[in-house]
Each structure stands twice: as C-alpha cells, then as structure tokens.
C-alpha cells in the first residue's frame, strides 16, 4: 500500500526517508553532498553551515554594526532572514541594517525597493536607501538616455560600488555583508580566467575583502549553493523580487553562468571545486597591485587622481560619456588593447547589472 503525506497525496515512490533524521519524507537532494533530506533537517543544516562559515572565518565581532546589501532579490532576502535568525540564536551581538541602492530604473528598481521595504517590516531591520540621483545627480534612466545601452553596466557597476560604500558610511557600519553565493563566485573565478585578470582572480574568492579600505565586505554565502538558497526561500515562503534588470546586456557573463549550471547538472561538486581552484591560485608574477590613495575630487579611495566614478561623471556632465570607459589598470600595454575590445562586459566583479549584491 502506498503511503500518503499530510495532504493525503499519494507519494508514488517519492516517499524516501530523510537520511539525517530517518523519520520524515525527503524533500530535496543537496547539491553539495547529494544527501536526500527533509525540510526541517534542510533548514537546520543550511543555517548551521552558514553559522560555521561565519565563526570559522571570523566574519563578525560582537557589537559590530553590519549593513546587508539588499536588492530585494533572493540572495539578499535570504541573507537578511538567516542573519537575523543566527544573530538571535547564537548571540552574535550585531546591529543589522538593510542597505539598498536606488539606481533610478523605472519599472525595475522601484518595484524591487518595494520588496525591500516589506523586508524592513518583516525582519524588523532598519533600512537605508541611497540613490544615484542624490549621489551623482543622474538616474540610470537618464544615463541610458544619454549613452545608450552599450556601456551602461560600466556606469552601473562603478556607481553602485561607491554608493554602497557611501551608504555604509552614513549608517556608520563596520562592515558590509553581501549575498554572493557559491555559484556567483565560481562564475567570477571563470570570468577572471577567461579575461586573464590574475589580480582579480586571486581576490575574488576571498570571503572578506577591502579590509584596508573604508568598509570591509564579506560574503557569508560563499559556500552556499544557489539551488539551496532558492529552495530555502521557496519553502519558507520568503518574499523576494525576481525580474531581470531591463538594461542588463548580460551576454558574456550569461554564457559563463549557463556553463556552470550545465556542469552542476552533471556534477554538482564542480561549483565548490572551481572556487577551490580559484583559492589555490597564487600570484607569482610581476602583476602590480595598484597603490591606494584618495580621489582629489570626492575623497573616495582611488589609485588615480580621480576615482572611476568621478571620471565617468565628468564625462556625463560634459556630454562626453565615453570618458573613462575602457581604461584599465595594472595591466601591461599590450593587454590594455585587448581589454578595450571588451567594453561593455567590463564590470566583472559585479553580478550582472541590476542586481545589488556584489
């Protein structure tokens, strides 16, 4: 006779038991371990693994103020939910804040910000929104109107990075935590290899970056699979926004994304192995890390006279939007040529444009 679950639905051979508790019906197969586990055990291992990552890497110290980069998307929504939970459960003693950037993209960011505002209430975390319009005098809609769809992600990526730092400074936080997951990091490792960007390759797997800068950033989901984040959000009925940025050209990164998903289907461990490969790369070349100074104009960290945002902004304000696009640093001259041909897919530290978490 067939078993039935709570709803009286037949289980048709789907009734395998959870390999952790051996009591309840398995609800998913973990990509990391291939274990078949039930919902309750899944919540437990998912949350506790993140806790372990936080503890082992000393991501936070008691009493710190932490901003969570919040886009309204799945990763940052689950991050806000899980971190507030762990903060309570394990007495981290953290003050958590949601930090969002309003790029000024009608029909996209305004909708996703509504999601973040609901998260503010649902999780009881104070929310700060910083906008491109306030910081730079331009919305993304206005920028795209001026420059077209070709290089807009260069603007978006540079402006967003700085906007998050400025928002974090306004909130007086000690650190910024982002929702980058294992799939994102594997993708960035491959992108940096494909671009020959060894300096970024060695940096992109670090779980904490920018410790010498104004606001260090950390990635508590570095080892968390995207599949599990989405399953968690689905089972917990978390409220998130999932529309793609209308300005995202996305082609090069999109291919790499697809490649990783294809690999995952055949061998889910591939994602962790790519991260491991990235970690094991050690620079032994003469690749120079640019020296850090501050921008003469706005005071933001910069290795040049003006920071990238100020250069781009100057171009916009003078009606010369190409200014500052395609410049590369720390590369030999023959490399620069190759990079210039890749304009439009440059913001390789960021996720595809329109998503906040990077």
């Amino acid at each position, binding site marked *: 006779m067939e078993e039935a679950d709570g709803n009286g*639905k037949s289980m048709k051979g*789907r009734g395998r038991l959870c390999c952790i508790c051996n009591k309840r*019906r398995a609800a998913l197969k973990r990509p990391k371990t291939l274990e078949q586990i039930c919902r309750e055990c899944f919540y437990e291992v998912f949350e506790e693994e993140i806790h372990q990552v936080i503890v082992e890497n000393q991501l936070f110290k008691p009493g710190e103020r932490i901003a969570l980069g919040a886009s309204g998307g799945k990763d940052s929504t689950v991050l806000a939910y899980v971190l507030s939970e762990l903060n309570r459960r394990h007495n981290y003693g953290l003050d958590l804040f949601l930090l969002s950037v309003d790029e000024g993209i009608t029909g996209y960011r305004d909708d996703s910000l509504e999601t973040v505002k609901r998260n503010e209430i649902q999780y009881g975390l104070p929310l700060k929104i910083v906008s491109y319009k306030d910081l730079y005098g331009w919305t993304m809609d206005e920028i795209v109107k001026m420059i077209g769809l070709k290089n807009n992600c260069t603007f978006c990526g540079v402006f967003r990075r700085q906007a998050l730092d400025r928002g974090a400074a306004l909130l007086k936080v000690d650190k910024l935590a982002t929702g980058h997951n294992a799939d994102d990091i594997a993708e960035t490792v491959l992108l940096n290899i494909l671009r020959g960007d060894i300096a970024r390759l060695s940096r992109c797997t670090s779980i904490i970056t920018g410790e010498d800068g104004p606001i260090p950033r950390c990635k508590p989901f570095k080892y968390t699979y995207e599949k599990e984040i989405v399953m968690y959000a689905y089972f917990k009925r978390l409220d998130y926004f999932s529309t793609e940025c209308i300005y995202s050209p996305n082609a090069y990164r999109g291919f790499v994304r697809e490649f990783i998903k294809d690999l995952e289907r055949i061998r889910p461990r591939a994602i962790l192995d790519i991260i491991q490969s990235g970690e094991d790369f050690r620079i032994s070349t003469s690749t120079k890390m640019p020296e850090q100074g501050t921008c003469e104009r706005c005071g933001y960290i910069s290795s040049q006279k003006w920071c990238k945002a100020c250069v781009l902004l100057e171009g916009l304000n003078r009606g010369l939007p190409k200014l500052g696009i395609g410049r590369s640093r720390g590369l030999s001259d023959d490399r620069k040529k190759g990079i210039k041909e890749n304009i439009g897919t440059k913001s390789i530290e960021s996720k595809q444009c329109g998503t906040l978490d990077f």
Partner: protein
Amino acid sequence: MQLTLEFGGGLELLCDSVKIHNVNVDPQNGTEKLIMKDLLSWVRTNLIKERPEMFMKEDSVRPGVLVLVNDCDWELSGQLDTTLEEKDVVVFISTLHGG
C-alpha cells in the same frame, strides 16, 4: 488530469505574468500515464508565450530551473520520468534572475 502548475523566480514572465495555472492535461502519445517529460513539452506548447529557451533546453528544463512535484524536489522522483497524478502541484522556479 487536473494539475496545478506554478511558475516563479521570473519564469512567470514567460507566460503572461500569470504565476498559477490550473490546467487539464491528458496522457500523451497514446500512453496511459503522464510523465514530466510529456508535461514539459505540453507546457512549452500551451503556456510559454515567449523566450522558450529560458524555460527549456533540449527536452528538459534549462539548467538552473528548479522543479518540485507536490513540494518535493524532482531530483528525488526521477526528473523527466516522474509520473504525475490527478491534482498534483508542479512548481517551476528559475534561480537565474536577480540577486
């Protein structure tokens, strides 16, 4: 056979932004039972209005699309070979959109 199909994570945009579809699908190709493989091609023909490549790749879902049958990961029930029954709820969620 009556089924409830749910699209999420941005996939709903491919079917006129409707998330939940109550549909009637009969077993295909003269067989007696309906399996996921046949349901997918039915969905592609009858519900997906644009960019089918965002939903499917070859005869399965595109890698990165999660499938749950009665809230259970289809990787536990045989994926394309999963047999569907009256009143089953099938959920498709894209993991590929947004952060």
